[in-house]
């Protein structure tokens, strides 16, 4: 068997490799649905129920280390699913599930800390955890803990990640790269100290405010998790058949994240976020939506960062202020470089 015939870490890293694995393997599961199904490869599914939409999403969470500055796997598991619902337009989750796979020998006190953190995040998001499942696997058969959460919610209007058209403006709800940089520095014990903290947070309150302000002019949403802003913009551009012109100087980045990125040779644009959203809006709604975002504690540094254009469908053009270049779609987890 060639290594290509096996699954590699890159197949879970949110980039091109993962997308092609999903397209080549899991799309075979897709079946027609009245609404948005698997074939759309969106953050979740939307199924028509009467005159409303039922949004359904599921996500498995693994992270190393499981406790990191700014959060832990429990907060991540709740926020990730709440955010996937919110990105489809369902900002009031009806319920979440919690399925946990534990490795034999996992410390009970750590599990309780994770439970507490899930409880806090679920209260913060007003998203009740309503059912669950527990499995234990032998030592070495699973790495510590895996948490799967699924969520359901209702909404009147679905916002997909494919709704951009030329002229639309692209907003980001805050600084980029915080989560991935904080976790990476810890995971690889890189000896970098400073105020690097994950941004992991449930965004449904923030998105509710944006939708209330923007209404039908909010046309596309996606959370820039693995692969960061670069990956998400490629996906949104590709699905909508537009190009994206991104103004690098407008993208908010915390100075600590920028500094760590410079040290490690990693561009914050490809680093994961767990508490941010990319929002596409019609040009006339930019000011309203930005004001609403900035009025929310999780959106104070929201910014207008780009424009959808008719040229170059599927591509992201980065204006650095000194010149323009194509932004490459990240492939695999970013790693510290020497070159």
């Amino acid at each position, binding site marked *: 068997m060639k290594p290509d015939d096996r699954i590699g870490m890159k197949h879970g890293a949110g980039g091109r490799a993962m997308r092609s694995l999903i397209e080549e393997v899991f799309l075979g599961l897709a079946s027609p649905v009245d609404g948005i199904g698997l074939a759309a490869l969106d953050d979740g599914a939307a199924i028509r129920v009467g005159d409303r939409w039922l949004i359904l999403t599921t996500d498995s969470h693994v992270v190393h280390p499981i406790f990191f500055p700014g959060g832990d796997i429990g907060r991540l598991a709740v926020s990730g699913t709440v955010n996937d619902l919110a990105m489809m337009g369902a900002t009031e989750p009806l319920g979440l599930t919690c399925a946990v796979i534990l490795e034999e020998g996992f410390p009970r006190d750590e599990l309780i800390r994770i439970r507490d953190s899930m409880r806090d995040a679920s209260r913060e998001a007003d998203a009740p955890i309503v059912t669950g499942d527990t499995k234990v696997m032998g030592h070495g058969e699973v790495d510590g803990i895996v948490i799967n959460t699924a969520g359901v919610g209702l909404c009147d209007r679905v916002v997909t990640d494919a709704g951009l058209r030329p002229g639309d403006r692209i907003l980001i709800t805050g600084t980029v790269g915080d989560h991935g940089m904080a976790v990476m520095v810890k995971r690889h014990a890189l000896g970098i*100290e400073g105020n690097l903290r994950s941004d992991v947070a449930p965004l449904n309150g923030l998105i509710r405010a944006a939708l209330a302000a923007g209404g039908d002019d909010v046309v596309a949403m996606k959370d820039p998790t693995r692969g960061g802003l670069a990956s998400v913009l490629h996906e949104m551009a590709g699905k909508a058949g537009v190009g994206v012109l991104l103004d690098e100087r407008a993208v908010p980045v915390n*100075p600590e994240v*920028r*500094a*760590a990125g*410079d*040290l490690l040779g990693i561009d914050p644009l490809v680093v994961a976020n767990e508490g941010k959203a990319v929002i596409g809006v019609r040009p006339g709604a930019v000011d309203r939506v930005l004001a609403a975002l900035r009025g929310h504690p999780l959106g104070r540094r929201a910014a207008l960062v780009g424009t959808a254009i008719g040229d170059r469908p599927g591509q992201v053009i980065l204006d650095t202020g000194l010149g323009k270049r194509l932004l490459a779609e990240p492939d695999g987890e970013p790693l510290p470089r*020497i*070159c």
Partner: protein
Amino acid sequence: MCLGVPGRILSISEDGMSAQVDFFGVRKELRLDIIDTPVQVGDYVLNHVGFAIRRIPPEEVGETLALFDQILKAAAHDDLMAEDVRGEMAAGRSSPGGEPGA
């Protein structure tokens, strides 16, 4: 080839072998056994893979900018001369053809 980032020394270990260095908001310990000049707290150094490889004298930052401006000025001077030559060529006082073809 080599990623190098400047930072500022916050403190030096007692044995003088390493330093805590601030990189615009994050800190990292760097080894000092490659650098060729004595360093002290407040100095700027260039980091490569966890080693300080060079002390950056502050005055040379200004000198670098002065050098760039000098290159610019020299280029502008060349350009003015080229304008003159073009002007002369246009006036038919000089024959073209000195420049090798592409």
